[in-house]
């Protein structure tokens, strides 16, 4: 799965390193993700998942190493803007706006023609059960509603690469399923989805490839099945067992 077909590489990270003062948050991480792939990015709290995603978007500069998105260097901000969609940990929405205003604003900034923008927005609002609340101020929204609004705005422009940081946190099962379905659909249409989460069943359900980050290092990479068997957890092993096995093994070798 993690082969390298130069044309189809959507995300390419080479020897990424990031230090904060004396602390190393990320240590020579490399990976390459093809278009149409859902890449599950796993790791315990503080492993460096958010840091990696910020590097992939160019919002933060690596201490060393390079990132290319669809062959474009990540510091080419004009080009990157249209290629990437990013849903960070805290939904970047404006409390003073309603969901509809927020989405229309983003569509305007992304130069999506008004007609098709309205259509898409309505479609997504319907799909995520936000249509009834779409004209209320976001300040009155629950965490899940903000999360859904932010998810919609990150896919509004059909990005080639979609980076999702804990997209299903705070969502009810129904909304979480809608997100999973959207991820699969987007991947089928050719989007590379980089998905960081703690909720392993989500990764098991949608991911084509998995990477496990531990303490700033990419310790395992492969298909979900491959990673599961690699951890030698027996026959009915789940990804969760594998995750716990891999990370505790790493913690042990660290000592």
């Amino acid at each position, binding site marked *: 799965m993690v082969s390298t077909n130069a044309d189809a590489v959507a995300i390419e990270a080479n020897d990424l390193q990031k230090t*904060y*003062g004396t602390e190393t948050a990320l240590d020579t991480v490399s990976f390459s993700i093809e278009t149409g792939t859902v890449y599950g990015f796993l790791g315990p709290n503080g492993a460096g998942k958010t840091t990696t995603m910020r590097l992939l*978007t*160019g*919002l*933060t*500069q690596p201490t060393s190493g390079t990132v290319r998105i669809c062959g474009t260097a990540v510091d080419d*901000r*004009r080009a*990157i*803007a249209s290629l*990437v*969609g*990013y849903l*960070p940990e805290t939904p*970047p*929405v*404006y409390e*003073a*706006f309603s969901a509809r205003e927020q989405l229309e*604003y*983003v569509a*305007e*900034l*992304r*130069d999506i023609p008004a007609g098709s923008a309205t259509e898409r927005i309505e479609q997504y609002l319907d799909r995520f059960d936000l249509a009834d609340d779409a004209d209320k101020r976001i300040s009155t929204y629950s965490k899940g509603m903000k999360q859904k609004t*932010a998810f919609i*705005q990150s896919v509004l422009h059909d990005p080639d690469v979609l980076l999702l940081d804990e997209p299903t946190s705070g969502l009810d099962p129904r909304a979480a399923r809608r997100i999973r379905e959207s991820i699969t659909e987007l991947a089928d249409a050719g989007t590379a989805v980089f998905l960081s989460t703690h909720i392993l069943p989500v990764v098991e359900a949608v991911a084509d490839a998995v990477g496990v980050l531990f303490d700033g290092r990419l310790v395992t990479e492969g298909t979900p099945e491959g990673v599961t068997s690699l951890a030698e957890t027996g026959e009915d092993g789940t990804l969760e067992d594998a995750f716990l096995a891999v990370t505790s093994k790493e913690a042990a070798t660290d000592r």
Partner: protein
Amino acid sequence: MTGRRDVHHAIRIARAEVIRELRGATGDRRRVIGLLMVGLFYGSGLLFALPAVYALGQATGTVQSIPYLGGIATVAPVSMVVLSIFRTSQQIGTIDSEELVLLTVHPRAVVLGVIGAEVVQSMLWFGVPIGLIATAFALGIGAPTLPVTAGLVLLPLFCWATVWGYAGGIGMLRLFRWLPGLKQLLKIGWALALLPIIVGSQYIGTAIADRTFSIAGLLETLAFEPLQSYVELAFVGTELFHSPSIGAIGVLGGLVALTPVGLAVATRQATTFWFTDDPAPEQPQRTERSVGGFEAPQPFGSTSAGAIAWGHLVRAVRQPQEFAHLMIMLVMLGPAVAPIVQVDGNVGPIVAAIGVVVGTYLAGAAFGLNPLGDDRPAFPLLLLTEAGPRTLVWSRVIAGLAIGAPIAFLIPLGSIVAGTPALFAVGFAVVGCGMCLTAAMFAVGIGAVYPIYEEQEYWGTETVVPSTGIMMVYFWVVAGGTVIGLILTWVVLTGAGSLSLLIAAGVGVYLLLTALVPYGSYRYAIRRYRTYTLE
């Protein structure tokens, strides 16, 4: 091509920012009332000023005869730049939802948009009064085009100032990131600088009154000729105006040329600032305190209220920004401090009295003015311990005393070296300690009347501050009560032995009030806490 796109985006960003700001400003009732009060205050002032401006216009024969024009033309741009630097470093330099904005449009569009929003907002705020004044003046001199030309003259100046202020503000933010200590230092320095400014303003007030100093003179010395003649361009097309000077044309050219340069500098600054990490992110940490988590030293450790009080004190040292509201004292006390500098001879008693007032004020204001709001994050924790409402309230009184009482006690004693008679020094010190107790008890009660929970921007930090109204009431009651108490103490000590019945009665009433009001206030605070406990 990209330029046009950025401008399009900038217009949308500016529009969104203005809408957000307006909705924020009119969002809750308290803000709207505040706005209305400000509007009423300045609006009525303006109403009285307009006829005078009109008359001034009628009387004006030449541009040179307009009072203060040169000084204002010089001071205004400088203050615009300073204001813009300040706004940038406080608010508009960091963008909200940056993960969205920076991954959607080019940073140049963001800078343009934010600055555009700032210009529009300032126009809304200042444009209306300036427009009215210009119109009144224009009607006075009979030149209806003046408001338009004044606007045309001000706009380039304003854009130039905002753009360079933005660049400077971001530069300052970057400097703070580099040298975090500098920020702390500036905050303290700013507080300390206030005192001389306030004291100084007292001097200037008297100096203006006895005509040793005149504002007109100061403005005249400040006047910068080319800027003055630039502003005079506003009178183009009226009888007052003859021909533009070379200086004026130079200034206009400079403004027009330097604005895009400033924009480029601002964009570079902002891009660097936004796309690099904050090495020490300043998260608002409102951590719960653990009551039993650390040993409180004696005498705090002996009771649970004492231990919690110790917690308050430790937190005060760790998060000094939570005490930003105490700065208001500097503003209020300034006028009181000014006389000391002017009195020659015996300043001892004044120093002693100020020590008592400051100590008393702090005893309540430091921990007591928003007890419910400050304790709310820790409520679940505090209520799980056996500490009851009485303990929680009392702990705030103790913590306040630990700060206020030493000041109220030691400064009067110390003032002996400045000439306070020993008897009075000791009397003030003893009375001061009593005052501290009453003030601390009074504070928790009125502080519980109107709890504030949200963090807001205050003196440059995000923190939960007590309601301004409560702070004012507290200040006037406590400062007034303390001063009366000290005067009574003085009278009693001077006339010891031969008190008239009237004075005795006065002292009696005073003592009764200072005992009952704080006690009632303290009981009220406990009642308010109890309603939370039962919830």
